[in-house]
């Protein structure tokens, strides 16, 4: 096959971050994250545990599941082995910190791995975002924090976030040596305590170092001979397109404006036609 879209490349990179005994927690509105969890479970991490719908529904999946917009909660409950509370979700994250994997989507992320989903803009002209929800609570606790950015742009990758939400590697509250990963449509990036600021881990095939520099709002070192991201396998692409997200719901994370609304309405009609 060997033809894949940027979102598929991203999803595969995200899935690779999941280890076999991890507990994957799903936050709010993150189709790409869920596709990645399901993909990992269908490939190299069959024993991973998935906590869906802000985490309170623990699902048991023995074969690849389909993601959904309309029936998200219903599909999770169909395969639920446990229905807890949000307090319990946190108690799970606290107890199993080392095994937790959670994909966060930041509105801003800076070179130190700090993230912001609260306020954009300094002084008076501020834009109020929906909020960080749980990111500021838990990100400094995790040894591995994974962010994903479907549109790698300068307004996302900033020198310093406008508002400190999820703390990066400078955080004093950090429990352990931390490694932050950022998966974007251009490559995979990393921030760790030793180096102190963001570096390139790998560049996706067909992306140039210049593209990354142009779209990143801070100095980012790109050594020669940097790793190229291993492209998705045919199996991975097959699973994504045929089993996990045949309607292509994941594209909603990439689209914006009118186009996004139009696509959303089309997707809803398709889902409605398949109503369980």
């Amino acid at each position, binding site marked *: 096959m060997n033809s894949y879209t940027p979102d598929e490349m991203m999803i595969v990179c995200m899935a690779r971050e999941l280890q076999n005994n991890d507990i994957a927690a799903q936050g*709010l*509105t993150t*189709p790409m994250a869920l596709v990645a969890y399901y993909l990992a479970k269908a490939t190299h991490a069959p024993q991973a545990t998935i906590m869906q*719908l*802000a985490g*309170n*529904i623990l699902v048991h999946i023995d074969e690849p599941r389909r993601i959904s*917009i*309309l*029936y998200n*909660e*219903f599909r*999770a*409950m169909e395969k639920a082995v446990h*229905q*807890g*509370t*949000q*307090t319990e979700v*946190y108690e799970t994250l606290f107890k199993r910190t080392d095994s937790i994997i959670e994909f966060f989507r930041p509105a801003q992320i800076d070179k130190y791995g700090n993230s912001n989903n*609260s306020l954009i803009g300094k002084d008076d002209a*501020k*834009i*109020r*975002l*929906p*909020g*960080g*929800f*749980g*990111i*500021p*609570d*838990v990100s*400094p*606790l995790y040894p591995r924090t994974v962010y994903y950015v479907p549109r790698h742009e300068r307004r996302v990758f900033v020198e310093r976030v406008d*508002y*400190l*939400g999820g*703390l990066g590697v400078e*955080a*004093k*509250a950090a429990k352990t040596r931390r490694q932050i990963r950022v998966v974007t449509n251009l490559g995979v990036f990393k921030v760790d305590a030793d180096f102190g600021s963001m570096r390139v881990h790998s560049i996706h095939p067909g992306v140039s170092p210049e593209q990354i520099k142009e779209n990143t709002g801070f100095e980012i070192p790109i050594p020669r001979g940097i790793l190229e991201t291993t492209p998705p396998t045919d199996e991975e692409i097959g699973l994504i397109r045929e089993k996990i997200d045949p309607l292509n719901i994941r594209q*909603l994370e990439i689209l914006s404006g009118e186009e996004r*609304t139009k696509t*959303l*309405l089309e997707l*809803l009609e398709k889902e*409605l036609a398949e*109503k*369980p």
Partner: protein
Amino acid sequence: MSRKLVSSKEASKIIKDGMRVAVGGLTIHRKPMSLIHEVLRSGTKGLRVLTLGGGPDVDLLVAAGAVEGVEAAYVGFEILGFAPNFRKAAETGRIKFTEHTEYSIMAGLQATAFEAEFIPSKLLMGTDILKALGYKIFDSPITGEPLVAYPRIVPDVTLIHAQRADQYGNAQVEGVTAIDLLLAKASKKVILSAEKIVTTDEIMKVPSMTNLPSTFVDAVVECRYGAHPTSCYPYYTYDLWHMISYLESAKTGKIDEYLRRYITGLDSFESYLDEVGEESRKKIEMQR
């Protein structure tokens, strides 16, 4: 156990101007919308609304001018994006928005529920969110290390929509349970609406499904489709079409029209459901 079944109009009298009102559910899941409509029709003002993740509940309350302050870890319509009326009001300062995180809300409620004076923890230290909350940092009497003192949160009233309950308020909440039980424990009063009022015998079939017992509930209201346009698993999913048209009305400056047509111009939530129409309900219905 005493019978607590009342009309939503009767129940909403518990809510007075200026109260701190907590709302159950999460974003576009199981929001107590019929109770929210009742609040809007009653003309109550100056409310301080607290919720883990706000959606149409918060946005409507703000749009109608019933709200002075909002406390939440998130306010938005998930896959549909921003909450437009909330956002505008927060950006212009018409309402005071206090951004919480999940932990800062849960810790405050947990302190109240468990008779702790506050919750001391390292979480959120160093964030701008904590700075804005203004919570005290003190030295641990055990280790000497600096800790955040998360103070008690005590809502005056909590509004919750459950899947089913008996007339005493023994309720079963399913799917996205959020922090509803914790809110009920920490609140002075709890108004519960339920999709179905069932017999106590029905409730007794699986007592461990009763995750919100009558001991924490003060008033019970029956309301089918009481969470519309948000979801109520296993009965119906969210009406994204209705929410899209709501968001469109906000975008085109027609929110007052929406409010009159669907809420304040009507006498009840049943009339709202009529206005929404049977066809729309059919679309989202999953199980009777």
